[in-house]
């Protein structure tokens, strides 16, 4: 009998502990279910790129609210004095979340917190020597001073990541040096002064770049294809004094790709003989190359020659399968442009330069070698590849 009491007590006790135990230190977790984003792909109400337009500067270096998407895209290859190479990518995207007339109050750049402008930042450093690619993505609303783009003074920023105009003697409204500053949470950092070395290029048809058959599937596209770059790169706690060359694209649109198009491969190459080549091919869902593939060849003085898809023969020599996404990206190419007497061998300087962020893509530094007009040439470049996601 006596034993029984102890059994009862012990069982109650143990049961109590078991009951009580798992309550500790659990995180309050929840997800949010939302209505299917209403007309997320509906372009209704946004401004569209429907044809060539007049650009005015410095205004057109600034933001174009009303268009759904806009980006300021810096890529570059820089070297330490000893010749150690780093690639970098620094991009600020502006995303308009609802058509311009759809907001009840507050325009894009008000003091208030409410906004339909969302800013995204992508920042990556490719450490070629260590084959190490570090990157970070940031978001912010384009309000309350947290992120934005403005012309006077020229500043494109997302929190402490920013592109800021710096004064220089020979600067004008179109061409001026900027300082790009960004730091990742890990401490990797760039502080670069970037000065255009060639005039601004209006890509496509005087800056109007048609990307699909459908009316309005086009963007406005401005570029500085060669910019002198100087400054500091910090990675793994080490600071490096670097110099080299950058490329900047400023592009805005509401919709670019047709439904049949799946992705693109976008090359920006700076050749050792002073020429720059931009070439992108849009890929259709069936694997074929879209008719709206285009490029431009910029001579050392900044004169542009348009390149059409039929001018280019691009062959993939090798591929790389990403261990992160299982996507298979091309990693080595031969590009032939008989019209320019140009034949280039291109290869990513190391394989893993995938941007594993909210929208996954590949953005990597390229090694360039080949021949132009019978002359051996080298160069640096960047390749951006999208649409290789495995379903």
């Amino acid at each position, binding site marked *: *009998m*006596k034993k029984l*009491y102890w059994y*009862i*007590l012990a069982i*109650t*006790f143990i049961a*109590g*502990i078991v*009951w*009580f135990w798992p*309550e500790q230190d*659990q*995180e*309050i*977790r*929840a*997800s*949010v*279910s*939302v*209505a299917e*984003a*209403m007309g997320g792909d509906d372009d209704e109400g946004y401004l569209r790129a429907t044809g060539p337009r007049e650009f005015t500067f410095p205004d057109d270096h600034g933001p174009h609210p009303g268009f759904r998407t806009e980006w300021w895209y810096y890529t570059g290859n820089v070297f330490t004095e000893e010749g150690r190479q780093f690639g970098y990518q620094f991009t600020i995207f502006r995303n308009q*979340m*609802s058509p311009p007339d*759809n*907001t*009840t*109050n*507050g325009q894009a750049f008000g*003091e*208030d*917190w*409410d*906004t*339909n402008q*969302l800013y995204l930042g992508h920042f990556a450093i490719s450490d070629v020597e260590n084959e190490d690619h570090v990157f970070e993505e940031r*978001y*912010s*609303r384009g*309000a*309350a*001073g*947290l992120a934005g783009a403005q012309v006077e003074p020229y500043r494109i920023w997302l*929190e*402490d990541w920013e592109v800021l105009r710096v004064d220089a003697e020979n600067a004008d409204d179109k061409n001026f040096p900027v300082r790009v500053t960004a*730091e990742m*949470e890990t401490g990797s950092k760039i502080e670069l002064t970037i000065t255009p070395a060639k005039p601004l290029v209006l890509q496509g048809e005087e800056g109007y770049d048609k990307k699909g058959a459908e009316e309005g599937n086009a963007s406005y596209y401005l570029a500085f294809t060669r910019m002198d770059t100087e400054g500091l790169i910090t990675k793994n706690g080490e600071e490096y004094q670097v110099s080299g060359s950058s490329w900047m694209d400023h592009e805005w649109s509401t919709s670019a790709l047709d439904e049949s198009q799946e992705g693109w491969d976008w090359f920006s190459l700076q050749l050792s003989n002073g020429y720059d080549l931009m070439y992108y091919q849009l890929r259709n869902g069936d694997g074929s190359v879209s008719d709206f593939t285009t490029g431009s060849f910029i001579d050392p003085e900044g004169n542009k020659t348009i390149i059409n898809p039929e001018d280019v023969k691009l062959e993939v020599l090798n591929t790389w399968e990403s261990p992160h996404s299982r996507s298979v990206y091309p990693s080595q190419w031969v590009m032939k442009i008989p019209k320019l007497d140009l034949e280039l061998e291109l290869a990513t300087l190391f394989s893993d330069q995938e941007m594993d962020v909210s929208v996954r893509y590949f953005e990597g530094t390229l090694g360039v070698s080949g021949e132009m007009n019978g002359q051996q040439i080298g160069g640096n470049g960047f390749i951006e590849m999208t649409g290789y996601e495995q379903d």
Partner: protein
Amino acid sequence: MSKYSSDLLWLSSLRFLLQHPWHFALSILGVALGVSVVVSIDISNSSAKTAFSLSTEAVTGKATHQIQGAAEDLDEEVYQTIRIDGKIRKSAPVVEGYARITGVNRTFQVLGVDPIAEAPFRNFASQEAGIELSEFMAGENTGLIAESVAQELEVSIGDTLAISVGGRSFSIRLIGLIDTQDDRSRQALESLLVLDVSTAQRLFDMQGKLSQIDLILPQNAEENIIPELKTMLPDGADIIRSDSRTETVEQMTRAFEFNLQALSMLALLVGMFLIYNTMTFSVVQRRPLIGRLRALGVTKNEILAIVLKEAVLIGLLGTVIGMISGIFLAQVLVKLVTQSINDLYFVLSVQELTIGFFPLAKGALLGIGATLIASFWPAREASQAEVSTVLRRSSNESKITKRILPLAIIGVSAGLAGLGILLIPNGGIAAGYSSLLFMIVGFSLIIPMLIVGMAKVLRPVLGKVNGLIGKMSVRGVVTELSRTSVAIAALVVAVAATVGVGVMVDSFRTTVVSWLESQLQADVYVQPPSSVSRNADSELVPMLVDILKETEGVAESHTVRSVDVRTNNGTDNLVAIDQGEAARNTYQLKEGDSGFWQDYTEENILMVSEVYAYRNEVGLGDSLFIVTDRGRQGFEIRAINFDYASDIGTITINREIYNQYFEDEAISGLALYAEDGVEVDELVERLRERSKGLQEVFIRSNKGLREASIEIFDRTFTVTVVLRMLAILVAFIGVLSALMALQLERSRELAVLRANGMTPGQLWNYVITQTGVMGVMAGILSVPLGILMAYILVYVINLRSFGWTLQFMISSEVLIQAVALAVVAALLAGIYPSWKMAKTNPADALRNE
């Protein structure tokens, strides 16, 4: 002895219990009631606590620190500074407040966030959880609630919720539901309305402001990061640990919870008396049996073991029943406890009980432990007695007669010990309660002596009224003192507990009512609806204030502003009044001279309430440092006032001084004086008419506000009243069981009386008179003990818990109620035995003889 024989003993004891089912059942009931009250209070308290910590956890998320401004809000530019210049990536802006959603009867906590910054803090409010940014932050009033709340409201995504914030109405389009993944999360998120920062700013009229900035800082932040961040903050803003808020809140409710627990222990104490009573009876009744067993060779220890085993059985059964009923009772109590917390301290919504291990374990321990303790002496007595004397009952009676004096002496010493405990400086609440316990025990030990004394007075009186039977009844009480005194003591303690609590509540109420009379000098009061009754946490729309002031018939007006500020004593409520010198008529000073009112408009001086002074151990002449928008400022305490509205205490300063240090134009309340000859009720009507469409506010006459305040007061004491009712119930059952058992046990004696010619009617008279006499005695004795208890509750426990000065108020109503309770219970207890004995053939009852 072998195992079998001890089992035989156990069987005989079980048999005995089953043969006295009433008795057995009542003793189990006694334990059960005591346990159930303790368990239910504990469960209510812990449920409230869990709900609070869950909602805090949900709101605080994983923040380690928070940046707060001086007076409840912070300039939003601080966020830019911290995030961009300070490079604190794990930082998130928060705009907080309360709102009511039409259709749900509870207050929701509004959390205004930037979903992009939220991920490290509160995953459910972050973009990563799936919030559609374009709908959330684009300027439309949209928000999220928990899925379970949506089901309760029968709304789905896309529907519009009607909400009200400080009397202003808004509609919020529901753009998402928070899918909780487990019970814990569901409970935590059930009272949350998640909005974008911009939406919350609009709702709370906080454009350009944030409530706070949440931070996650690394472990060693105190050394390097925090000092650096502090240099970036404007005056008045500070970085505090995020758990300091929880601490403040816990401190707030500590006394409240403790008192509830103490009251529940009181119920258990009364229950213990019942158990003691029951066990004594069961031993006394079996005295012949025990004697025979002892004569047959059963050892003392075996007798002791058997009696204790019985006690364990009663304890176990009572505990199990008590726990189960306690859980049910908790469902009622938790609502009352939550209501009180909401009225007094902060918004809390408890949707479900948290039945943890500890309340149950504590209940079990108390139930079984109390039974064992209470039955130890009866058990010992049964086992210690000599075989020969055990067989005679009278020996026991002669023993107690000898013990009356020693018992009384022990009782007096216990009482003195109780008094001694009271005198311990800084004894705290616990000491107050233990002193109370000593006094109760002490008093009950004196009871046998008092009964003898009272019997001497009552015998001639009843002799005159009821002749021989009257005299016999009284004598019966004395001759069977060993049993009657325990029954009466149980009754006294139980009834005294109700007197004590009753007098305390009455005293409190009287004090508050008279304080309100002097405090409410103006004719009409205007207040925005507030989520915590005693804390003005919302603001009046400025235009409304102007319109009301200019209403025809208004002679004069003044305003108050109530904000939470940080001081050297923690987070305190600061009230700024713009009444000028006239305030001297409104506020009653406990300490300080009237010169205060001349100086307080110009100097950095202030007034604190007595509760504040007590809690923070400050007095006249002391300095108080307040974090203001102009930095930390010192103020001198020059007056201490009576204030029964807040048990946390308030600081009062002049509005002009306040304006010098705070960037805050807001008004929390408006008092209006009617012109001579203007009917106040008419003025109220006129004012209500003029306020329409601007803001939903309470416009109440002096009388209306007084009534509303008293209503809230009464509501906060509902828990206490319910506990008192439970104590009464325990007392009632105790009396019933004690006296009924007493009379049933005397069946043989009564049979002898019947056999000697007493008629059934006379038997009725005899039994009823006797129980009545015991009831009267208990009723009378409960009065002094009750008043003593009330005295300790008011002057020691209240003072040590809250620091209030209360007027001691004994209403005859409470006393009459107590005596009536005792007498009615006693009379009822007599009915069944009388009826039974009157019906039984005396021969049957005597057959065993």
